[in-house]
Structure formats: C-alpha cells, structure tokens
C-alpha cells in the first residue's frame, strides 16, 4: 500500500515560500526593469527575451495565475466544478472600467485617483478598485451560488456555464442595458487610469513596475489560499470535497461553506479582472468568452488541483504557450525548416491533446496535492490493498 505521511510538516514550511518567492520576484523585476533596457545587454539575449517571454507576456501570465488561484479554491479545495469563471474576470474588468476611467464622463468623482482632479469620469484609487472589484465579484458569487449550490454538481456546472455566458453577453450588448450604457458594447472602455504607487503612476508601458504589482497580487492570493486551506474553513472545504454527506453530519453547513468557497474564488476573479484591465489598459467585451473559463480550468487541472504551486505552474505554462510560446516556437520551426505553418492556430488542439494525455497518464496534475494524488489513484490502490491493508498499515 502506498504509504503517505500526512502533511503535518508541510504546514510548518508554508512560511518559507515567501523568501523563495521574493527572490524569484526580484530577479524577474531586475531582468525586465533594468536588464532589458540596458544598452550593454547583448542583442541576442534581448531578442531572445522579446521573442520567448516579452514583458507583456509575463505580466499577462501573472494575471492568469491570479485567476487560476481563485478558481482553485472553488474547484481544487471545495471540489465544485465551475465552468463560468470568466464572468468574474469580466465583472472585475468592468469595475476597473467604471471606477478608473472617463467612461462616466458626465460625472466628476475623484477619490485618491491617479489623474488630475478635474478629469471627467470616476477615478478611484487603483488599490481601492481592486477591493471593490473583489467584493462586487464575491457578491455576484454569492448571488449566483445561493440558488444553485443546492444542485447536484453536474447541474451546478451547467448553471455556472450559463452564468459565464450571460455576464459577458450583458457587457457585450451593454451599450443599451435597459436604456443605460454600462459597457460601451463592442467598442469597449479604452484607457483606464494608471496605477498610483506613491512616487509615480504606472501607465500601460511600465511593464517592469507592473510586473512587481502583479507579483505582489499573486503573492497575496497564494498567502490567502495557504492560510485559508489550513484553517477552519479550508478543512470544511476539503471535507466537502471528500464526503459531503459525512461533512454535513459532522456539523458543516454545506450551503454556507460552499458559498464561502464561491465568494473567495470570485473575489480573486475580481482582483484578476481589475489587474487585467490595467494590464491591457482597457476593457474589451469580446475578450471574456467561454474558452477563458475552460482555459483557467485546464490550468488548475494541469498544474494539480488543490496545490497552489501546481496551479501556478499550470497557469504559467498554459498562458505562456497560448501567449508567446507557441508562436515563438512556430517562428523558430518555420525559419529552420522553411515551412509556413501557423502554429498559433493549433493552440487549442494542443491543449486538448495535453489534457487528454494528462487524464490518461497523470490525472493528478504536474505538481499534485499529495492527498489528491492518492484519491485519483484510489481505484488502483484499492485493488491491491483490499486484502492486505487492514493488517499491514501503520508501522
């Protein structure tokens, strides 16, 4: 029988990650903020970075990581399938659009904003909008969850799917939402306010500094995930994932506990949505589509449901492949072999293939949570240990 010792020591080592994370973060920051613009940098390296991992790509992958970490709380921790997570991304994005731009030009509200006080529109400080976006999403998470979380998981998945379709559609057609323009429709909301960080304001091209901001937000999500996971709520989520009925018989209120997973996950979606709006300097309705939900789900599954480091790895790999990796590889390939293949158009074929292979050979993901790995191989284990385990376990 597979002997796994429980993660009592894992808990204690949770604090150590901050050091490692900070070192990697600072190195990335130095690379993109100082090394890349440095004149002495050999042209080869400069070109390579721009081809394989340009500043915008690394920032975008961080936004994906934030989202995936949020989805991980719903899917990985609580075991609830959510196929419409993109809705929270959209809502978060429009929060940035509404509260950090000239969209509401007929108003003039400025609360610690990063633009001159007389600028039309609503201009609330980025850091507050992050929270506002997070909380509005959490509220939507509760609104959508409350009537649906009673459903069996298959139906829940369908409802979330619908939600993920409806919300982006509302924004897509939002130029006339019961007579009001809430989204500028397909034109989108262009130009959101820069991010104020005290000494300066970070505009669309301050990639290096924004990298730091996104790294920070990611760290916050990791921190929240790990802390919650270890606490009262995280245990209840896991218990529900393991055996919902037993959990309720042990005093865990199913609805409330699932709702809290939904709300926390949605909150992260809001954060990511606001961050993404500042990253692309605008909000564009057509970007929030179903594939994003599936994409995020694939990140969580590829990396290893329930394990934040696995999810980060999964999100990083997939967003990179989708953003730059495949194109860069295609260029390399085409140059070398004189072909003319559009590699980028094979993205989803590749994802499908990867997911199928994963499901066949490594269901628990690249960096699985140890207990999930056990769970997914339960069938195999049970066969061999049905007779022997009862006596042999222990030491």
């Amino acid at each position, binding site marked *: *029988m597979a*002997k*796994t*010792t*429980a*993660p*009592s020591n894992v808990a204690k080592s949770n604090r150590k990650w901050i050091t490692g994370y900070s070192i990697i973060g600072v190195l990335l920051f130095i690379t993109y903020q100082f090394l890349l613009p440095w004149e002495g940098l050999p042209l080869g390296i400069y070109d390579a970075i721009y081809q394989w991992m340009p500043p915008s790509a690394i920032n975008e992958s961080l936004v994906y990581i934030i989202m995936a970490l949020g989805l991980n709380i719903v899917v990985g921790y609580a075991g609830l399938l959510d196929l419409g997570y993109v809705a929270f991304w959209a809502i978060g994005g429009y929060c940035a659009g509404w509260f950090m731009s000239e969209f509401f030009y007929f108003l003039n509200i400025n609360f610690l904003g990063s633009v001159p006080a007389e600028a039309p529109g609503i201009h609330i400080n980025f850091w507050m909008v992050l929270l506002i976006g997070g909380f509005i999403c959490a509220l939507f998470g509760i609104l959508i969850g409350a009537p649906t979380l009673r459903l069996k998981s298959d139906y829940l998945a369908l409802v979330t799917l619908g939600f993920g379709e409806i919300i982006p559609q509302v924004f897509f057609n939002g130029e006339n939402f019961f007579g009001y323009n809430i989204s500028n429709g397909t034109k989108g909301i262009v130009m959101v306010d820069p991010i104020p960080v005290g000494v300066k304001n970070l505009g669309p091209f301050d990639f290096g500094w924004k990298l730091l901001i996104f790294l920070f937000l990611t760290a916050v999500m990791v*921190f*929240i995930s790990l*802390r*919650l996971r*270890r*606490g*009262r*709520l*995280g*245990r*209840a989520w*896991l*218990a529900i994932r*393991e*055996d919902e*009925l*037993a*959990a*309720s*018989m*042990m*005093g*865990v*209120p*199913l609805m409330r506990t699932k709702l*809290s997973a939904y709300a*926390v996950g949605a909150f992260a979606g809001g954060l990511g949505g606001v961050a993404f709006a500042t990253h692309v300097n605008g909000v564009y309705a057509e970007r929030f589509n179903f594939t994003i939900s599936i994409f995020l789900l694939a990140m969580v599954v590829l990396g290893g449901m329930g394990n934040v480091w696995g999810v980060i790895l999964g999100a990083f790999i997939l967003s990179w492949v989708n953003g730059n990796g495949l194109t860069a590889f295609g260029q390399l390939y085409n140059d070398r072999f004189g072909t003319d293949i559009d590699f980028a158009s094979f993205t989803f074929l590749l994802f499908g293939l990867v997911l199928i292979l994963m499901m066949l050979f490594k269901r628990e993901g690249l960096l699985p949570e140890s*207990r*999930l790995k*056990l*769970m997914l191989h339960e069938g195999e284990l049970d066969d061999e240990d049905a007779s022997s*385990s*009862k*006596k042999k*376990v*222990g030491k």
Partner: protein
Amino acid sequence: MANALEAKNISVQFGGLLAVNNVTFDIPNKSIVSLIGPNGAGKTTFFNVLTGLYKPSAGKIVYGGKEITDLPPHKIAEIGIARTFQNIRLFGLMTAQENLLVAMHSHLKSGITATILRTPRQRKEEREAEAKAQEILDFAGVGKWTHEFARNLSYGDQRRLEVARALALNPKVLLLDEPTAGMNAQESQVFIDFINKLVAERDIAVMLIEHDMKVVMAVSQRITVLDQGEKIAEGSPAEIKSNPRVIEAYLGKPKAARK
C-alpha cells in the same frame, strides 16, 4: 430519569415501502440503549431520521425539550447529536486530527479574515482545538495516528477514529451504527469497555445498532427490536432474550442473524 432524546411515532416512507412504521423510541440520559433487528428492518433509516438526513413522513423528534424534526443535519449535529456510519465514512485523505477538527467546525468561530490574518485569537482557538482533538484521539485509543491520513489506519482504528470524530462534536447523544462490525471478539471487548467508560465519564447517552448479540447483551440497559419497520419488542436484555416474537423474527430469517 429524563430523556436525552425522544422520537415519537416516527414513520418513513420510501415510495411504496414503509421502512419505519410508527416507531416511538427514547434515549434516557447517560444510558446505553440498543436497536436490533434483521437486515433491512429499518435501523439505519431510523438513525438517518434522527440525524436529519431524512425527514420522517410522520412523527416528531424532541431533543433537550425542543422539537428538532425540521432542523437541517448540520444543526442537529451542532446541538449535540453525533453519529457514526455503518460503512465507515471518514474523510480518508485528511489526517486523524483534521477529521476531528472538521467535526469541531460548528464550535469554532474564526472567520475568513481572522484565518487569513492569523489573529492571536484564531491561533489560540486552533491550538486549543488541536489539543482537544488529541485528547479525544487518546481517549479513543488512536492517539498515535494524529497526523496519519484516516484511510491509512487499520479497520479497527478507523472505527475508533469515527467514534472519536463523533465525540469531537461534544455530543449529548451518540448514535453508533454497527460499530463492532468486522471486529474480532477481543476487539469487541475493548470496544465494550470503551463505551462503558464513555458513558461513565461523560454526560452522554449512546444508542447502538448492533448485530453482535454478545455486545448488545453486554452493554445495553434497554434493547428495542425492529422488524420490517415495526417495533416488535422492547425491554431489558433478559426480557428480549426470552421474547418469542424476537426469536421468531430472527429464526424466521436465519440469514439475517449475522451479516
């Protein structure tokens, strides 16, 4: 002696099947009572009603002077009715300690913010909960498995852990569904001692579903017999042993005498 729990005229209907038929049953404070009967008699179903999993089609349940018939399962657990399952339902991929901490969920208070910030109060609460969990694990005889995944424990230890988990709810009433199933005579004896000690030391009443007559006769103050959903006898072990209807119910279906 007052009753910890009273179930009055409980009926449960599954489609055309009357799984429990007008059963009245009470559990006196600090007592050990047993529910026996052939397979399919409706014993587990009766437990499921007491713990709120099924709503009875008729009848009511009173606990601590209040009617609890319509409370949701987690509320019933929270106010002090805990159970184990006929087929062990531990959280297999959580540690023994975590299993107990889940059961303490409703008694702990820390919310999301306190957990994220790890406030001194939250840490104190967690420390105390862990200490209490350890105490219960020790009491139940599985104290050395604190950080072991529940599914890695031996069968007997899993049964004990399930009782420990139920005890972590700090219940007034403990419902055990065939707790000695699969145990040998010696293990059963250890279990009998454990139950007796439990009731002697704590303010708790135990209701037992059990097929092992040795265990039933040894621990029960009162035995109730169900057959095809109906209560056919109730009394002391001696009375039940000599009750002709009980003998008939069992001998009439020999395969049911022991699973």
